């Protein structure tokens, strides 16, 4: 039975997942680091960087797998090595580049140069390749990580293979997006991937209110021997994260300012005299304007009339005042 195979796969992944967990004390250290010059990487620094990674992943069209792997590499590295905050950008792009090469097809891999240009990073291509080498060495080239995404896919496959009459639809893409939102917070890197994935699954099932799926989820929990306490703990945190993710309030982007580079021509255009302040002083309109007008007989109460009558109407009105004097041109 297919389900049997999937459950076996689950078990084997469960055994592997510990190998790819970032060290907990390392992560705690980051969480406790305050933001400051010369200090190490802080939680906010890491979170902001991961958000940038997500922007890049999305922009280049890479898969969620790439992103999740990149974050995994980043967290593992940060948990084991002391990194200065100024190197964080290079480190994260390095992780992303490695993840891209591992996951994506070769034709879709963008060059280092393009990555650096789009991310508006300050380091060079050689910096990046050096960093990638360091990452690879420190992580022992263990790139095929077992992540929460692995488990999500397996859970989804299991749920699908149980053909129930009601056909409750578990949207994998939605789950992936939620996972991505969670990964943007360092607290979730401490969770076991299997537990994290299961928390997400259960929250979604609750939203769908499907008893069938709930049963499947419980079976998975039993199979993997995940404790109720653990699950409850992470479910709570995930729930809160999802609330913030779904809230209609906008998060004001307060990270580093983006550079807006335009071509020379456009730059010239922008600086041109669009904001020119006219030299002529304002002439206030007075209420008495019209009454003093010599041609008040053809005055314009309705604009429509005035414009149509003004076209070629030389005969009307007091065009030439009664005291008009002809001006003979004197030689």
């Amino acid at each position, binding site marked *: 039975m297919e389900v049997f195979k999937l459950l076996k796969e689950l078990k084997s992944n469960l055994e592997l997942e510990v190998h790819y967990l970032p060290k907990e004390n390392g992560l705690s250290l980051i969480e406790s680091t305050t933001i400051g010059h010369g200090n190490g990487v802080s939680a906010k620094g890491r979170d902001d960087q991961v*958000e*940038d990674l*997500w*922007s890049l992943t*999305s*922009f280049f069209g890479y898969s969620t797998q790439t992103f999740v792997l990149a974050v995994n590499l980043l967290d593992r590295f940060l948990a084991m090595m002391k990194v200065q905050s100024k190197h964080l950008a290079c480190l994260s792009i390095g992780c992303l580049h490695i993840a891209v090469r591992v996951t994506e097809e070769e034709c879709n891999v963008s060059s280092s140069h393009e990555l650096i*240009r*789009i991310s*508006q990073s300050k380091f060079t291509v050689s910096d990046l390749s050096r960093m990638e080498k360091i990452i690879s060495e420190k992580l022992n080239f263990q790139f095929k990580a077992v992540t929460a995404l692995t488990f999500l896919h397996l859970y989804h496959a299991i749920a699908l293979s149980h053909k129930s009459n009601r056909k409750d639809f578990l949207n994998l*893409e939605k789950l992936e*997006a939620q996972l*991505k939102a969670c990964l943007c917070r360092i607290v979730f890197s401490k969770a076991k991937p299997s537990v994290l994935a299961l928390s997400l699954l259960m929250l979604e099932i609750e939203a769908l209110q499907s008893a069938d799926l709930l049963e499947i989820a419980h079976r998975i929990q039993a199979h993997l021997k995940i404790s109720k306490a653990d699950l409850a703990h992470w479910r709570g945190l995930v729930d809160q994260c999802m609330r913030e*993710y779904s809230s*209609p309030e*906008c*998060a004001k*982007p307060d990270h580093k300012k*983006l550079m*807006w*580079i*335009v*071509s020379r*021509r*456009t730059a010239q*255009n*922008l600086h*041109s005299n*669009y904001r*020119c302040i*006219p*030299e*002529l*002083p*304002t*002439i*206030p*309109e*007075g*209420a008495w304007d019209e009454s003093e*007008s*010599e*041609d008040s007989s053809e*005055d*314009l109460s*309705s*604009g*429509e009339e*005035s*414009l149509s009558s*003004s*076209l070629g109407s030389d005969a009307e009105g007091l*065009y*030439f*005042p009664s*005291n008009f*004097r002809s*001006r003979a*041109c*004197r*030689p």
Partner: protein
Amino acid sequence: MSAISAAEKVDGFTRKSVRKAQRQRVQGSSQFAVNSSRPAAPEISALPQLKDASSTEQHALFMQKLQQCCVIFDFYDTVTDLKCKETKRATLTELVDYVSTNRGVLVEPVYPEITNMVSTNIFRTLPPSENPDFDPEEDEPTLEASWPHMQLVYEFFLRFLENPDFQPSTAKRYIDQKFVLQLLELFDSEDPREREFLKTILHRIYGKFLGLRAFIRKQINNLFLRYLYETEHFNGVAEFLEILGSIINGFALPLKAEHKQFLMKILIPLHTAKGLALFHAQLAYCVVQFLEKDPTLTEVVVRGLLKFWPKTCSQKEVMFLGEIEEILDVIEPTQFKKIQEPLFKQISKCVASPHFQVAERALYFWNNEYILSLIEENNGKILPIMFGNLYRISKEHWNPTIVALVYNVLKTLMEMNSKLFDELTASYKSDRQREKKKEQEREELWRKLDELRLQGTSAIQNNRHEMQFTYSNKNNNNNLHKDENTAAAITDRSESDTWAE
């Protein structure tokens, strides 16, 4: 000298180098023919200085000098009358000084003399342009030949108007509608210095002569309409708009219906003029002033601009985008909500434009903090409109600068509302997949039809005398030739159904 032909214009290399070789063009004249022989102008002899005259004599001397300056000289002839020209010039300079520095010189009899002298010197029929292909942006303008005198006449008139003793009630008998009309027509002069003076003079006249205001506005409207719908030629549009800017700035609230009509029937259609580049800055200023006076006009203005959005001229598109940004800078959030959808549909198209300047200008809106805050407030409506094009061009655009800017915009939008962004990404991807699938199916269908055609041809050759058998009723592929029935029978029913749809 020859005008630059249209062919030479297209080839960008000839202009500057050729122009230096040409001597400076001079504006034609309706009063003097170039290089004609004519009787010499009457001699004018220098009169005594005003400053030397006693106070009783000064007035009479002033009048005399004014009358003297009514003699006009031929500046095309650079040889004759040199002494007299100099005399006139010196006299004019003296008059300028006299009227600027002295009080009590503007007595009533002086007014008609002054207006007469000014009219004589400046009012003339402007000749047709020397250069019919005159491109105001590229070519040097044709200058007025008699500028040495004319400049001083203008200067004098301006000082006269600005003199503290100037009485509009007296002057209005002489500076009347006919005078103003002739003044307005001079705005078509090609000489920018002349237009500059005219602009200031008209501004002062409008300010001081309340009775002439309606007339001036009406005549300017006439000239604009004639420019826009009849001649497509008028050199003074920018100057008029500058004056109108200062007038609009002074409008009383609530705005009169006449002014609103002016906005809708004249200012907005002016955006369609071919020569927009020459006066766009002033036009945009006028429009923005209107909106600052009465924000409820926002909707009609923006819809008007969208209606006239340039479809083939990228330069104009960039200008329009600049104007939109200026409008958005002053827009009220409630008004923004009314126009956001049609506006951003247009911006979305601009962002995807293959012309890099248009795309850049549109993308740069996201660098404007106030616009960003407006987008943020309404991101639920705006994000779906912008997303498709942004995402597509991030993959497809040829220009790397644009790609980098698109990243900035996408990143900003992503941070505004992650959930919506993710949803849009997912639906975009699934749409793309569906399209791809359809494309593949279509290709497959054509391929099969190709095969059928080949099969059918050979079938005709082989089965010439075979009886045709009827179609199945459900097969509605009318275009297939009856001889290809054998092959048609094996056509997949679903394919033919899709094809017939």
